[in-house]
């Protein structure tokens, strides 16, 4: 670091050079440089054959070099570093947006041709034509949509009460120093780290011990999802309950209200927006889980709405099996995979939107 040593050196006699004003690049130099670099490299690429990736990469590198060199010539090394780092950090951020945009675009472009009313309302069926001896496959996602809703619904029914009650225990009842509170907090952290496939193996092990080796069922998958969902619900609910200000609780106690009523009438209504948002986001997280459902509920093309018996199809598993285990008509299978992926994305977006809207609507009254 040059800053401390330079301030320590003795003050020079004679006319003082104003170091704050000497040697600095004009104000908008970064934007100007960037524009020039983009234009120039676009021109160069237009000559040798345009590729958008190459253009952006080359522009970024040239910009970083240019701004670094200019700044170290006119200003000093420290400022040059600062400007280059600023550029690097911005590039890192833009880099992260590329996969996001690219993923969404790919899924929409690929899936939009597949998803129509028929795809949503029919199950996949194979029709054998005896005269031409061919099998025509019509793909449909109804079985997967129903399966996803049932499995996620059951998982939510299991996880939400356990998750929120645990959060209430941790925030309202337990002293943070109690062994049980410490253990539970610790175990919730451990649970967040369980790989999703291990949750699937757990559900499979549990149900195959109980019901024999072919115990694939929607309920088993819901149990697997619960293992993943409970810690998310606990963590978010815990944060939300902690946000409720102590004054509200104390005011309630001062009026002689019992603890149970304080929690249900004061604390929970105050935190309800955050609680529902957290729960919705937790559902959005587990609805896209593939591996555990694949382990525990296997996959099928048949319609099955009974979560306690037989394999059950879900959207993420449909997307996976469509690619990995295609049927006779390979292109149709792959198309159905993209259709399922698009439906899944739509589902996740809907859940996220609900979470946002709920956060607005249920926010405590008076200060909205």
């Amino acid at each position, binding site marked *: 670091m040059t800053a401390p040593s330079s301030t320590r050196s003795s003050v020079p006699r004679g006319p003082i050079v104003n170091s704050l004003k000497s040697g600095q690049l004009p104000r908008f130099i970064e934007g100007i440089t960037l524009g020039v670099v983009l234009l120039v490299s676009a021109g160069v690429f237009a000559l040798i054959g345009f590729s958008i990736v190459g253009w952006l990469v080359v522009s970024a590198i040239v910009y970083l070099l240019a701004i670094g060199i200019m700044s170290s010539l006119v200003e000093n090394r*420290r400022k040059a570093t*600062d400007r280059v780092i600023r550029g690097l950090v911005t590039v890192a*951020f833009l880099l992260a947006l590329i996969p996001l945009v690219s993923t969404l675009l790919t899924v929409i472009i690929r899936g939009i041709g597949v998803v129509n009313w028929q795809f949503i309302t029919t199950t996949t069926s194979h029709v054998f034509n005896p005269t031409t001896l061919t099998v025509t496959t019509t793909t449909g996602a109804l079985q997967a949509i129903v399966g996803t809703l049932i499995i996620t619904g059951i998982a939510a029914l299991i996880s939400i009460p356990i998750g929120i009650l645990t959060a209430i225990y941790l925030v309202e009842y337990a002293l943070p120093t109690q062994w049980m509170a410490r*253990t539970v907090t610790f175990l919730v952290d*451990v649970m967040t780290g369980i790989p999703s496939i291990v949750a699937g193996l757990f559900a499979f092990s549990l149900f195959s011990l109980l019901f024999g080796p072919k115990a694939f069922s929607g309920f088993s998958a819901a149990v697997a999802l619960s293992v993943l969902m409970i810690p998310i619900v606990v963590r978010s609910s815990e944060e939300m309950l902690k946000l409720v200000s102590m004054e509200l609780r104390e005011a309630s106690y001062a009026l002689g209200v*019992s603890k149970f009523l304080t929690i249900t009438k004061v604390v929970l209504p105050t935190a309800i927006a*955050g609680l529902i948002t957290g729960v919705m986001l937790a559902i959005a997280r587990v609805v896209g889980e593939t591996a555990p459902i694949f382990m525990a509920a296997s996959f099928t093309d048949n319609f099955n709405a009974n979560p306690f018996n037989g394999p059950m199809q879900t959207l993420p598993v449909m*997307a996976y099996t469509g690619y990995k285990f295609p049927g006779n008509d390979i292109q149709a299978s792959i198309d159905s995979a993209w259709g399922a992926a698009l439906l899944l994305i739509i589902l996740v977006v809907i859940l996220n939107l609900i*979470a946002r809207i709920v956060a607005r609507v249920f926010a405590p009254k008076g200060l909205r």
Partner: protein
Amino acid sequence: MSEPPASPSEPQGYNGAGQTTRTIATNGRPGASNGSARSGRAKSRPADRIFLGLSTGAAASIMVILAGVALFLIVQSIPAISADWHTSASLNSGPTANQASFWTYVAPLVWGTVFVSALALIMGTPVAIGIALFISHYAPRRVAGVLGYLVDLLAAVPSIVFGLWGILVIRPFLLPLETWLNHNLGWFPLFSGQASATGSTLFAGAVVLAVMILPIITSISREIFLQTPRLHEEAALALGATKWEMIKLSVFPYARSGVVSATLLGLGRALGETMAIALIVSPSLIFSLKILTDGENSQTVAANIALNFPISDTLQRQALIGTGLILFVISLAVNLVARVIVTRTSPGAKGRKAKRDIAQLPPSDPSTVLALDDASRSPVDFLERDGVSKS
């Protein structure tokens, strides 16, 4: 100065979750003070006792579930682990063929898992920290929240979608780069071997993994960066430091342990990631350093389970469950180390009674961070925020 470093910059007005989590940390836990009130009350109503029982029961069920996960995995995998792999007909066919024992079966899988996760971390961590810095210290204050939300959206994309995207987009996209690397840097062990023609390489898998762990590392690092004491930053700027020097002098030292454990939590995520690898990489059961080949890529535990589970018989499935148990233990260890680092070295833990907050980290989950963002925009916490952040 052309670029005023001392201008009142980002964190103060940033309305994200950083402030709210900080207020919680300094405020103590709300439960702490009303625990004693309970004993002082004269009579407790039945509803009270039932509710206490219910919530305690829910908390206890967490212990039961976790114990159950470990127990059932162990019970189911013991037959395969203790079996004689030379003589068992079942274990000598299918996915588990030609193995001397369970341990020789699982060892290359563990290697592959650790290897590809490490590659993903090497590629993902610098970018993730860069993004976190951009959002916390460089982006204009007004849009910082939105930009953070965009990155968190990455976490909302299901892993299977990333897998499909990897097949369709990343594989062909990386192919020219892979061929070039193999051609020109083929002497380097990582890039050696017969270059892939399809792009189903470990490198492509690692790139997709890196994208998937970006949001988790970013969201935690961002929260930690925002928690840097404002006075430290202003002191650095007042001494004439440039913005980058300020970050190096005040933000990084403060956030070091948090960033390390964010990286470890990202590693935990990468270790367990299944579908992206299973879809993209064409693997084999070997120890391999090559990342640019077809069929000479190391396989990971999770992808191996997903690929072989449907075609296995009972004993082979138990072997797969055994590998799952090993994966469970590894990711457990990684997560524990991450938490311990935070508890030991977090700056907040020094002054106060250090031991109790395992959860010094902001919630490890981008979705929780999102929920917190929402809550902080609603007025629930305005009292606490005003009360504490000014003091």
